[in-house]
């Protein structure tokens, strides 16, 4: 567990430093995720302690969003004032985004698979 914490904090720290040094709009943790991913690719494997502890952490990822979510309390009056326009906007945008992404990916993957299959079939 200690090793896991050290690795995660180290990569976040490094991500924060790089983000700040280069003035990037990407937050440190996202860069840290990228760097850790690259490290795992170079290493060609997941260290056993990460393989053991990270899935446990992912199991209660939801907890980590609770404090920020309670922050909605500071905007209750605005949310009440613009309730309908804001709610409908959020809903329309959510469905448009989610369905456009899922729909296009589903189509692209089907085409991609078909093309691979044809290529493979041609060789055989």
């Amino acid at each position: 567990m200690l090793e896991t914490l050290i690795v995660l904090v180290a990569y976040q720290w490094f991500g924060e430093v790089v983000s700040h040094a280069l003035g990037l709009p990407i937050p440190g943790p996202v860069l840290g995720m990228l760097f850790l991913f690259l490290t795992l690719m170079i290493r060609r494997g997941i260290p056993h302690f990460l393989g053991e502890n990270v899935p446990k952490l992912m199991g209660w990822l939801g907890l980590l969003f609770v404090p920020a979510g309670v922050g909605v309390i500071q905007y209750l009056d605005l949310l009440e004032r613009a309730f309908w326009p804001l709610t409908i906007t959020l809903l329309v945008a959510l469905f448009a985004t989610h369905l456009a992404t899922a729909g296009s990916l589903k189509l692209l993957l089907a085409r991609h698979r078909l093309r691979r299959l044809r290529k493979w079939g041609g060789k055989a």
Partner: protein
Amino acid sequence: MTIWQFILQSPLTWLFITLLTFRGMVTLNRHCKGHPLANPIILSNGFIITLLLATGTSYTTYFSGAQYVHFLLGPATVALAVPLYAQLPRLQKALGPLLIALLIGGSVGIISGVGSGMLFGLDRELLLTLAPRSVTTPIAMGIAEHIGGVPQLASVLVILTGMLACVLSVPLLQRWKWDSDIVLGFSTGIAGHGIGTARAFQISAGAGAFAGLAMGLNGVITAVLVPFLLWLTKL
């Protein structure tokens, strides 16, 4: 100071309540057989907000304790690299379609929010705050600040979007059987960022991994696309 005041002011009280509430809501969610409306994050938020209002406690006091949980978001984001790496073979196979879907989803994410906000005549500041609504909180706040939106409000809209994704659009995709790890996971990460990713991990490790990937990538391209689209449309 009475003992009651001491308890309400103590950071530890709110840390404890945050942990205990979430744990309780996870049990409740299991009792409801994982029904999307019984989302543990939403139930916990509702319960804690009610508690804060009932006791007249400020968010600042609450956050003095809850910040220790909030802080772990950073290391947890880094940790998303691990499940993603476990999906490397599938990721390599589907790389082209994923990148195109990212570009489509990222653009629709920005345009749909600002566009439908315009139809409802929301003011400019609110429109700019809506633009980065689909991406993870720190990136969304950064973008909102950069383009003249309201960063704090951006984080609220981001969180509400993530919650709505868990309750409404994820169940819809499941009902339509658009529920392969890649399609469901990736689109949920684009539309519902971290909160969607947490939900995707409840469905499967594969879905969670692709959601985490989508969340990170969407954050990056949205940070580039929002200023570009604003410049293009002269909004």
